[in-house]
């Protein structure tokens, strides 16, 4: 074991050093508190320290206290004079693991060191186990993340996730172009989700997101592509549709939202800001460009709503 000694008294120091060396330990000798502290803060610090209670600069108890403040794993044995029980208690309170009284009894010292070594080995195997567990958790998280990246559906709503939606919508747009059908792209963003999270908690927030997903599902047909793009954003691609059906379907969505709010009995209400664009079959833009258009329109609605809310918030 590597053992640090902090002892200003030369004779005690020699006795300690000789005994420890004889027992096969590697000894780091310091003769004052400051040097001891520096050695214990070093990268390759000894795992055990024998500190004299009384030293001219920084005493053993002070070093103990500092070590525990920085959560050092060093095992500390404090050396105190015989019959100084109050020193002893103070030392243990300061974070010493053990103590020895002077003049030193070599047999006792050896027995305490063996006990210390057992504790240090146990602690090390515990730390090792914690490291292994942390690594296992990291690996598992990475695997789950990889799986999520591979998946096409959103866990919370059961709708397509961003990846699933884009892939499928892109494909449908190509089919629509070829078959010369117009499509409708709807971008829907929930209103006030942050407020729900902040006041009712994240579980309520999740419930609201799931409910919004369910409303979308009930509103559209099976052949329409519905996705949760992330957070509070949804998108729907409705193939083969044109006015006046387009307007009707958006009205149906708004109607279903308010119906939900009347019936749900939840403490929150769901609001959707909606942006919709018709996609002509002659249009050569890809799905992401179309989504940017829809997003912009949605955002305009959201801004208007916010202005409206400001007015409504005036005390009744």
């Amino acid at each position, binding site marked *: 074991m590597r053992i640090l000694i902090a002892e200003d008294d030369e004779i005690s120091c020699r006795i300690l050093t000789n005994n420890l060396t*004889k027992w096969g330990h590697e000894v780091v000798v310091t003769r004052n508190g400051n040097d001891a502290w520096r050695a214990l803060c070093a990268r390759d610090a000894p795992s055990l320290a024998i500190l004299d209670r009384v030293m001219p600069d920084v005493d053993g108890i002070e070093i103990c206290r500092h070590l525990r403040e920085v959560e050092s794993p060093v095992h500390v044995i404090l050396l105190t004079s015989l019959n100084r029980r109050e020193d002893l208690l103070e030392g243990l309170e300061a974070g010493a693991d053990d103590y020895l009284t*002077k003049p030193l009894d070599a047999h006792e010292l050896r027995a305490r060191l063996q006990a210390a070594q057992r504790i240090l080995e146990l602690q090390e195997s515990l730390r090792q186990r914690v490291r292994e567990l942390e690594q296992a958790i990291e690996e598992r998280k990475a695997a789950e993340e990889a799986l999520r990246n591979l998946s096409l559906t959103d866990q919370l709503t059961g709708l397509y996730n961003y990846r699933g939606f884009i892939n499928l919508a892109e494909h449908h747009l190509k089919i629509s172009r070829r078959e010369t059908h117009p499509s409708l792209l709807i971008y829907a963003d929930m209103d006030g989700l942050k407020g729900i999270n902040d006041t009712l908690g994240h579980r309520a927030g999740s419930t609201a997101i799931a409910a919004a997903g369910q409303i979308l599902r009930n509103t559209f047909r099976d052949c329409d592509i519905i996705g949760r793009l992330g957070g509070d954003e949804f998108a729907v691609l409705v193939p083969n549709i044109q006015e006046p059906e387009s307007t009707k379907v958006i009205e149906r969505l708004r109607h279903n939202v308010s119906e939900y709010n009347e019936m749900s009995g939840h403490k929150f209400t769901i609001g959707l800001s909606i942006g919709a664009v018709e996609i002509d079959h002659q249009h050569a833009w890809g799905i992401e460009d179309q989504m940017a258009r829809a997003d912009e329109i949605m955002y305009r609605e959201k801004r208007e709503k916010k202005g409206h809310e400001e007015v409504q918030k005036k005390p009744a």
Partner: protein
Amino acid sequence: MSLTATETQPVDLAILAVYDDAQIEGEPDFVVELIDLYLNEVPRLFDTIRKSVANKDRSTARRAAHSLRGSSANLGVLQMATIAGELEHLENDYSNVALELLSSLENEFERVKEILNAERQRRSA
């Protein structure tokens, strides 16, 4: 002068002999080394005590007495350890008592030196 049965030996040689266990092979006699350290250290500590008592510097005197007690106890110099302990924990009537204790320490040290030097001789022979 005859020693009575109750009088403490100035040096308990059995305590010194324990340090033979810490002797590292191939190195000079460890007990001799400790004796040399002690014989060097004590006059220095006496000096410090005398000066700091004269200067009314009690904390320095106390620290020196503490060292003297520790080193003496380590080497089995038990009487000196006891007297140094008294000096270390002295509270009242400081200077006079302190100087008295110092002079009994010096007397005792004369006896201790003889014994330790004899032990040193024996081991170096």
